């Protein structure tokens, strides 16, 4: 009770301070006077009387300070005082303050921005109901070296499992032509089982979800629109439910609209329309065609992934009893994989993100060390001020608190400015981050990100504030007061500490630089990979003919012939390629094949290859090298001609010992006709520059024109200028035919490297900042070393030391620090870079060239940073140096 009263009293004492100070002074004065009078009366000499009274009291100022500590709420008062004083010190030294705050702002901002991505992708739960229970189910078929779940497996699991609350499936998604609502358009659709939305715990924001009978074979054709499509194409019509839309020339009834923030639980799919996945209700392996399904389940509470996995694997094993012989072979060694949905969605980007976060944290750490170093120098030159403060009664804690407050003030300013930097950084990330980061959810600065920013701000304050504060808060009062010089001898001890800081800073910088160097070298390799074709001045457009309208192959052939005719006549067009799957588009048509003269393999074990249907001008237009034989010509365009061209890998793998030209292979079932090999062409990296070319064959498109075809137009100048006219030529042949995928081949090459480019750019930037900070740190400490010894150098020069001697002395210092930093850093990098190996292409994580290069660059920059102050030391005028004593 009394204690509380005490606090209230003290709170009141925060005010009316001057009055209280006067009273305090008066009380001390009266105390002294009474004591002196008593002493005089006791017969002590006047000077002695006063001295004795003062000693007995223990000093006026010290007593006052003790009382001040006791009065009011010193914590708050002192804090305000420190804050005020700290702000004054920072204002007095605007250069240092600006650089420190900017360094921190950049560091904290970059960290916060990167963390906002980490937060969205790795931390934030998926936007579904109880997402921890959602799992992804897949089957791995070792024979096919592929993951897939045919619908009978899904149905079997769905009907017989006990560990799942529910299981749902969807197809891989497809492109459909949307007509009848403004311009014809190609949009992405995904077919889902009736319960998928229920499994996810998502409800349409308008209308209803699918009914079970709509997701069965022969069910009504219904569609759920994405919010974006509904707004864009249907003007947000609130009465859209029940209206019809036309997809691929067939009519679908709209049953609802998805919520605006709905994201499909698959990074590869971003459907604008959801359809019902119509599957047979029973397990049936004998159906004419099987569908491939993507399976998402919700496990029951308490069921582990292992249990769920074991149950489904057992069910898949049982399936083996009732399926055709062909599948039994194919299912050899079949494995079931149950993964957490979140893991499935983000597992592959986690390493990248963590590496970026680690690198940016290193940069911030380097910045902190730098500021700590400058702070150390500043407190060294403030020794005298601190000694005076200690002499008039400031305790060690009091000095420490004041220095820490100054540090906290810088950190707080840096933190606030850092949030602004982070806001800008998040915008940049949203614009440039690869889609693999952006697909998971919106990148925003939310509460967690703010917490993070606050946390690292406090941490930085501690890192760069504590060391100098601890050093400086125990000044040697006597020595510092005696000494006339601003820079005290105590600086030598600090100098050792500063060297240690610079060495650690250099070591950290080496690690970041090696990481960015590796990424840059890997990226250069990747960019210089020969893709096997010439991507300059190539315009690409795609179109897909609905099979309901273009039923007969002849119809499709006629359509494409006319498009080819029209486009090749355009001015500025050199030649036109037509194909079923352009490189870098991720389209591929795969077929089994057999080579004439080799024994028949049982169904399910036959080799498979991508088959590309191309026009005769294809190889010339893409500039794919002809290695042997010939390319297709117009005579091959007759449907009955059966010729085929192999790529080099195919020829090497399947005809290792003889010339393939003239040999025959056939595709599809055993009764299909043979095709003659007429040529071998160079390899094309179809799926991206980082993937080695796979076996691949080409056949004339005329034999069986694909329904989805892509044009590549070789132009004289910038292909983008021709985009509109080429599009018009396609629409001129069929006004209902949407054109999509309009881009240039160069753009596609750029896009295929967007992930590596993003990582490389960011890490390169971090590396650069780390280099600048670390070299700045070396410069600072060596320059300080020179300033500290101005006097000594002056004497040395006066006694005849040559310029070389002085430079040598200073440089030795710098070289020792640089060598130590490099050694430590290279060792650290050697231990750490293996975590980078997933991001590297064609280069080992311990690539000696990168390590040597980084060592050279850093050593060069650091020595230059030493040389400048060393030169300065030689110009010291002995007279001036000695006089400044």
């Amino acid at each position, binding site marked *: 009770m009394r204690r509380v009263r005490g606090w209230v009293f003290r709170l009141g004492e925060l005010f009316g301070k001057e009055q209280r100070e006067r009273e305090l002074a008066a009380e001390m004065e009266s105390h002294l006077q009474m004591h002196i009078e008593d002493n005089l009366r006791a017969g002590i000499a006047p000077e002695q009387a006063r001295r004795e009274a003062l000693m007995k*009291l223990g000093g006026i100022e010290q007593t006052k300070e003790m*009382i001040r500590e006791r009065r009011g709420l010193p914590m708050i008062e002192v804090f305000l005082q420190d804050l005020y004083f700290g702000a004054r010190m920072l204002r007095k030294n605007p250069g240092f303050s600006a650089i420190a705050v900017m360094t921190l702002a950049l560091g904290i901002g970059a960290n916060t921005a990167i963390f906002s991505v980490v937060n969205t992708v790795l931390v934030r739960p998926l936007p579904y109901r109880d997402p921890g229970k959602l799992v992804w189910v897949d089957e791995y078929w070792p024979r096919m070296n592929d993951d897939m779940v045919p619908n009978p497996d899904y149905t079997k699991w769905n009907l017989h499992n006990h560990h799942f609350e529910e299981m749902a499936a969807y197809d891989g998604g497809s492109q459909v032509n949307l007509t009848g609502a403004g311009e014809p358009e190609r949009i992405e659709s995904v077919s889902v089982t009736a319960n998928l939305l229920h499994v996810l715990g998502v409800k349409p924001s308008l209308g209803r979800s699918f009914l079970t009978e709509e997701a069965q074979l022969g069910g009504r054709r219904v569609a759920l629109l994405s919010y974006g499509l509904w707004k864009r194409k249907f003007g947000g019509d609130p009465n859209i439910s029940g209206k019809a839309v036309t997809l691929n020339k067939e009519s679908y009834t709209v049953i609802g609209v998805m919520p605006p923030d709905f994201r499909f639980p698959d990074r590869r799919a971003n459907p604008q329309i959801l359809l019902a996945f119509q599957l047979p209700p029973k397990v049936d392996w004998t159906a004419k065609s099987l569908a491939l399904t993507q399976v998402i389940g919700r496990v029951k509470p308490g069921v582990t992934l292992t249990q769920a996995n074991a149950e489904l694997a057992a069910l898949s094993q049982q399936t083996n009893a009732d399926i055709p012989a062909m599948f039994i072979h194919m299912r050899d060694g079949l494995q079931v994989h149950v993964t957490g949905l979140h893991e499935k969605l983000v597992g592959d980007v986690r390493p990248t993100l963590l590496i970026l976060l680690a690198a940016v944290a290193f940069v911030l750490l380097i910045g902190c060390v730098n500021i700590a170093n400058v702070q150390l120098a500043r407190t060294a030159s403030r020794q005298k001020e601190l000694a005076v403060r200690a002499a008039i009664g400031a305790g060690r804690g009091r000095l420490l608190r004041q220095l820490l407050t100054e540090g906290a003030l810088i950190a707080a300013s840096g933190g606030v400015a850092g949030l602004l930097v982070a806001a800008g950084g998040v915008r940049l990330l949203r614009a440039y981050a690869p889609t693999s980061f952006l697909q998971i959810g919106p990148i925003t600065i939310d509460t967690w990100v703010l917490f993070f920013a606050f946390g690292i701000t406090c941490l930085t304050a501690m890192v760069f504030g504590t060391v100098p504060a601890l050093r400086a808060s125990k000044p040697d009062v006597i020595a510092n007061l005696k000494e006339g010089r601003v820079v005290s001898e105590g600086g030598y001890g600090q100098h050792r500490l500063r060297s240690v800081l610079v060495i650690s800073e250099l070591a950290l910088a080496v690690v970041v630089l090696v990481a960015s160097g590796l990424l840059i070298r890997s990226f250069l390799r990747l960019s210089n990979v020969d893709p096997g074709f010439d991507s300059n001045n190539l315009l690409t457009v795609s179109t897909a003919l609905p099979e309901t309208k273009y039923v007969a192959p002849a119809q499709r052939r006629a359509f494409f012939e006319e498009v080819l005719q029209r486009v090749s006549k355009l001015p500025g067009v050199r030649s036109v390629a037509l194909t079923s799957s352009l490189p870098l588009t991720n389209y591929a048509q795969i077929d089994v094949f057999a080579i004439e003269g080799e024994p028949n393999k049982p169904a399910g074990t036959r080799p498979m290859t991508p088959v590309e249907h191309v026009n005769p001008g294809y190889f010339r237009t893409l500039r794919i090298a002809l290695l042997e034989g010939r390319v297709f010509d117009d005579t091959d365009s007759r449907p009955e001609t059966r010729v085929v061209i192999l790529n080099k890998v195919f020829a090497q793998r399947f005809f290792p010992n003889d010339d393939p030209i003239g040999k025959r292979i056939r595709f599809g079932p055993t009764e299909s006709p043979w095709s003659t090999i007429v040529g071998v062409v160079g390899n094309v990296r179809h799926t991206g520059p980082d993937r080695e070319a796979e076996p691949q064959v080409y056949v004339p498109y005329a034999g069986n024109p694909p329904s989805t075809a892509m044009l590549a137009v070789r132009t004289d100048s910038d292909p983008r200028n021709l985009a509109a006219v080429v599009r018009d030529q396609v629409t001129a042949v069929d006004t209902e035919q949407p054109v999509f995928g309009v881009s240039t081949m160069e753009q596609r090459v750029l896009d295929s490297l967007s992930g590596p480019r993003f990582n490389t750019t960011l890490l390169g930037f971090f590396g650069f900042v780390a280099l600048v900070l670390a070299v700045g740190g070396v410069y600072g400490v060596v320059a300080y070393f020179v300033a500290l010894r101005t006097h000594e150098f002056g004497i040395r020069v006066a006694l005849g030391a040559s310029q070389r001697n002085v430079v040598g002395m200073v440089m030795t210092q710098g070289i020792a620090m640089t060598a130590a930093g490099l050694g430590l850093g290279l060792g650290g990098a050697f231990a750490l870079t293996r975590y980078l190996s997933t991001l590297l292409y064609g280069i080992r994580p311990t690539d000696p060239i990168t390590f040597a290069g980084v060592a050279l660059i850093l050593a060069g920059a650091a020595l230059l940073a030493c040389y400048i102050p060393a030169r300065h030391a030689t110009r010291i005028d002995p007279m001036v140096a000695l006089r400044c004593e």
Partner: protein
Amino acid sequence: MGERADVWQGTLALMVLKTLQALGPLHGYGIARRMEQTSGHLLAVNYGTLYPALLKLEQEGYISSEWGASDNNRKAKYYKLTRAGRKQLDKEAREWEQTTEILARFLAPGKESA
């Protein structure tokens, strides 16, 4: 000064309260002198340490202060006990006696056997 004892906070407060009870209103210097005399100069009180203790007692409401004139007509700040101070003094003195009694039993030789 060799044999003089240090004073710690709690007892210092008790001594201040007792002094004020015995002598009535008194200034800081007077309290310090009185304590020194009473202790037979066995206590080494740095007079300065008295003032924070006085301030604490005042904040807790056990004593109050006002400015007055000293014997030599010098202006001085006089401290006096409040009602709460008197009660606190009784309580602390009792506690102190108890403590010393207990300690005395421990320290006095041969008493346990009785």
